[in-house]
């Protein structure tokens, strides 16, 4: 088997359709007799629903039906099932498909209006009369911890939904003997996520099968099916969920949403197809948001700058519900100790309910937060001791000769977390070389001549990828000799089709173009988890490899039987099994597939099982750890406070790369996301939980005009923990990026400038900081 495709930067099989405008996104689906949904949503952050009067709205032109939760009583009731139950959450804190007694954030859905156009549905939604009793709201997680704070849920006695702990070692002892201890307070802002396609659902009852059939712009179609089936008390087989082309995910679309349930319930109720397409206004108030947290950390370190221990507390802004359980805060604790070899760690995290949209994993989940904390602490230590920032890291990182390295942390099943491979110091050294850190002072001086403050930032990270338990795949050769891969892994632009095809084509000796893929349709593959946590290359990629090998073995067994040649003397190439060294002595895969499809009355040759196909579930039972070191340079205009990232260099190791072009694309997009976090994206709410930045004029996403080129250098340390040696690459760009940019800004502001312990930072703050000098 030769690696013709694996590792090659082949262009994507996905592209031609999408570029020609032939993609099929959820809003591109039209069904006969389809109704269009608009939601009536809460306009203030906390209130008790007294009454909902739909009578005027129902009489409006084109309106077919308006449902509230009470209208679904004959089908289902109660809150939605939790996606990821956690023992610390005694009672799940999930939405109702439509709020029935209390609304807990601006934008919570209260009623669904169905009309023959979206415009008319919006007309009627505006005419639904709500009588909602105002309840005091809490929009700040720190204030919400106060015993006298209003409760985000009026029936709760506290806004702290759970207190999570993590750590290892004897923290008190390590702190007691440390040369130095510093305490810092960090404030990491929640932001939006903003895939360019909002969410959307089209559902109908299939006339042939009677199945409730749902197309949804989701990262987790199988979770939608599982939880909807549970909620409706139906067999999973009676519900089919598919994801069409999805216009970006980045995390929030991994949730199972109230709107998905409400649309399904509405279809069951009205027996007509229903489409709901989230608009951008709704996205700002109804799609989960990013990782807002505050941290107070103590760090113990010695005179050489070696970091020994960290302890501290986090207040995690959970928002009003926990549809995804404690997944997001759990990733914060699990991301420690990053690349640092600590002797002890002691963390406590309060998951706090607020009257805001829930937070859930967004590109990196809370890993970017932890990278920010650890890298800021490293810079802080360097500053305190007056040594180079990189020296703190070199002295504190896990060394390559310590691999595999048990961090001291425990996985959810109690097993020790162990980094599989990597060279963190090597990556840091490489990135400093590549950005030419040695000559940075000259560049700083040159910038000064132009009136600009130039700074150099560095940040490293370790990223757990390949989260289990599995994402399966089947590989089948059709009688036409084409290879069809089916998997439960949904795709949101990551290039799965190309990557999977590269893996399978090599194993089966076919051309890339001969491979097609069917993903994320519960009718085409039985099981699936979710496209999250940089896990698909590891889990599904490995499954494709294993399944393709099974198919290969079967094809060889078949050919061995037919050609009467020993299996070891056979190989696959050119869409056929042939005798090594005798290309003409062969049987085409198409012929094998045709024969194994069965002929009436004829026995299967060699008593083989029918179908040239196999399914595999790679058991991803141990995380594999990607890592990276970033360096960037910024220029600050001291008069306006403007900050420009002028250079950005990434060193990244995600093990073997299936397709370096795709990996680079993931990293570039991820870095820009992180730059957005550091400098631009600010989701502002007032004290009453009203969002103040609900347009793209107010919520600033990074644009081409302000972004630098991202230079990428790879180290390739194969993972020993899966058959293809890969590690995830979807989030590694984002994780250290905000930390790296802030490090550079702090460097630009000079030794008299502030220690920057928050993001995003604004030009206004920069001016204030410089004024204070």
């Amino acid at each position: 088997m030769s690696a013709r495709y694996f590792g090659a930067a082949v262009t994507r099989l996905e592209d031609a359709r999408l570029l020609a405008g032939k993609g099929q996104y959820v809003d591109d689906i039209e069904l006969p007799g389809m109704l269009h949904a608009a939601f009536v949503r809460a306009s203030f952050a906390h209130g008790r629903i007294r009454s909902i009067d739909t009578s005027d709205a129902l009489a409006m032109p084109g309106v077919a039906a308006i449902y509230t939760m009470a209208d679904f009583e004959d089908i289902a009731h109660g809150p939605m099932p939790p996606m990821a139950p956690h023992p610390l959450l005694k009672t799940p804190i999930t939405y109702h498909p439509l709020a029935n007694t209390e609304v807990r954030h601006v934008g919570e859905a209260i009623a669904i209006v169905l009309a023959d156009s979206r415009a008319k549905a919006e007309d009627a939604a505006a005419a639904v009369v709500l009588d909602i009793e105002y309840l005091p709201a809490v929009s700040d997680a720190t204030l919400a911890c106060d015993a006298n704070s209003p409760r985000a849920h009026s029936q709760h006695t506290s806004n702290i939904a759970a207190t999570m702990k993590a750590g290892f070692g004897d923290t008190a002892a390590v702190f007691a003997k440390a040369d130095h201890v510093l305490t810092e307070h960090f404030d990491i802002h929640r932001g939006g996520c903003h895939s360019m396609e909002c969410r959307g659902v089209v559902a109908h009852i299939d006339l042939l099968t009677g199945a409730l059939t749902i197309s949804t712009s989701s990262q987790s179609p199988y979770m939608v099916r599982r939880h909807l089936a549970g909620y409706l008390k139906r067999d999973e087989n009676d519900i089919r969920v598919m994801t069409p082309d999805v216009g970006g995910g980045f995390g929030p679309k991994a949730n199972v949403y109230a709107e998905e349930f409400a649309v399904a319930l509405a279809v069951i109720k009205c027996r007509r197809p229903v489409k709901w397409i989230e608009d951008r206004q709704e996205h700002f108030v109804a799609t989960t948001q990013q990782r807002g947290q505050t941290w107070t950390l103590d760090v113990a370190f010695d005179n050489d700058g070696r970091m020994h221990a960290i302890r501290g507390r986090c207040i995690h802004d959970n928002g009003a519900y926990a549809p995804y359980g404690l997944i997001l805060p759990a990733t914060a604790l699990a991301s420690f100790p990053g690349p640092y070899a600590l002797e002890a760690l002691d963390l406590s995290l309060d998951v706090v309910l607020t009257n805001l949209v829930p937070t859930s994993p967004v590109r990196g989940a809370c890993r970017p937060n932890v990278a920010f904390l650890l890298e800021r602490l490293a810079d802080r230590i360097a500053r305190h001791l007056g040594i180079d920032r990189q020296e703190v890291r070199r002295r504190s990182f896990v060394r390559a000769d310590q691999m595999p390295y048990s961090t001291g942390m425990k996985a959810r099943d109690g097993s020790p977390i162990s980094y599989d491979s990597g060279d963190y110091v090597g990556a840091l050294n490489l990135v400093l070389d590549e950005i030419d850190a040695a000559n940075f002072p000259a560049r700083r001086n040159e910038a000064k001549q132009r009136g600009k403050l130039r700074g150099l930032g560095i940040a490293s990270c370790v990223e757990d990828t390949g989260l289990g338990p599995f994402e399966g795949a089947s590989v089948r050769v059709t009688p036409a000799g084409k290879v069809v891969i089916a998997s439960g892994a949904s795709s949101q632009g990551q290039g799965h089709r190309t990557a999977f095809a590269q893996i399978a084509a090599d194993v089966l000796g076919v051309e890339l173009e001969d491979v097609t893929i069917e993903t994320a349709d519960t009718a085409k593959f039985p099981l699936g988890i979710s496209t999250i946590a940089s896990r698909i290359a590891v889990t599904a990629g490995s499954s494709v490899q294993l399944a393709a090998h099974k198919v290969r073995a079967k094809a060889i067994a078949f050919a061995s039987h037919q050609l009467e040649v020993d299996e070891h003397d056979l190989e696959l190439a050119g869409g056929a099994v042939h005798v090594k060294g005798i290309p003409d002595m062969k049987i085409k895969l198409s012929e094998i597939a045709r024969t194994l499809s069965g002929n009436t009355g004829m026995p299967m040759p060699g008593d083989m099982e029918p179908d040239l196909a196999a399914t595999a579930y790679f058991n991803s039972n141990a995380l594999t750890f990607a890592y990276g070191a970033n360096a960037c340079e910024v220029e600050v205009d001291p008069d306006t406070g403007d900050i420009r990232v002028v250079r950005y260099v990434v060193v990244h190791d995600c093990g073997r790369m299936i397709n370096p072009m795709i990996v680079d694309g993931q990293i570039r997009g991820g870095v820009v996301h992180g730059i957005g976090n550091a400098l631009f994206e600010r989701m502002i709410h007032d004290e009453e939980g009203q969002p103040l930045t609900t347009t793209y004029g107010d919520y600033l996403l990074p644009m081409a005009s302000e972004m630098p080129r991202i230079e990428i250098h790879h180290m390739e340390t194969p993972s020993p923990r899966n058959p293809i040696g890969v590690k995830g690459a979807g989030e590694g760009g984002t994780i250290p990026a905000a930390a790296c940019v802030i490090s550079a800004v702090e460097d630009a502001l000079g030794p008299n400038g502030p220690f920057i312990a928050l993001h995003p930072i604004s030009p206004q703050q920069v001016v204030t900081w410089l004024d204070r000098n």
Partner: protein
Amino acid sequence: MKASPFQYHRPQTREELGALLTRLDNAKILAGGQSLMPMMNLRVIAPDHLIDINRIPELAGIRETAAGIEIGAMTRQTDVLSSETVRSRLPLLARALEHVGHIQTRARGTIGGSCCHLDPSAEQPAVSAAFDAEFIVSGPNGRHVIPASAWFEGLLQSALGEQEYLEALRFKPWANGHGYGFAEYARRHGDFAVAGGIALLEGDRDGRITRAALLSFGVESSPRRLTEAEGALLGQHVDNLDIEPVIEAARSLEAMEDAHVTAGYRRHLAGVLIGRALKEACATLERQS
């Protein structure tokens, strides 16, 4: 995000437009639509009637007359930007337009639309105020001219009457070789400015300032001329201007604040940017030799 229903009207002539404005209640004029359409999609406004003036040829175009350069209200920003007349006679306007939105919004957006909408951060109203442009307005009582000094009534509020429409803006070009400077700060290219500054200068043979216009925008609810500071510049030598009082004048304005920006930072920026604009104007002021 779909607009509320409305009656659509598409007059072909100014007369038809005038008649519709007289007849219809709760009507909005649709020019380039780059501010109006988002507000309608967001249902921030819901007019009963929308009067589309895109098909009235007389409202668009750039003409040089004895009284000045007239730019029809419906002239697209992209056409203003690429106009040779504007580039040579009103270089400040071209300079400012590079900061207005993006190629897609300039392709539809109009100078008149911007000057009627009056976002406090908008560049075109600011330039028109710096030039003391004249706003040529038509209505039931015929055509009349409103000077820039009377056009800006407040936040998003022009002097245009309900039954009136803006026909054109008339700019009186400054002398050939005049100095012009434009500086604004926006977070991203094409965003509405957080604040900005504009300077126009004329000088005599010796390089002494004979005429000056200074303006801050995005700071108060309307573009604000720094009249006293303008006067103080007169007679000063361009190579040796006392810029500090100008910066101080801008820094003393009553600045707005919003969710992102404090009044203090806006005032600070106003000072920085008027300083930059003035330095640029000094640099572009051609010396007579």
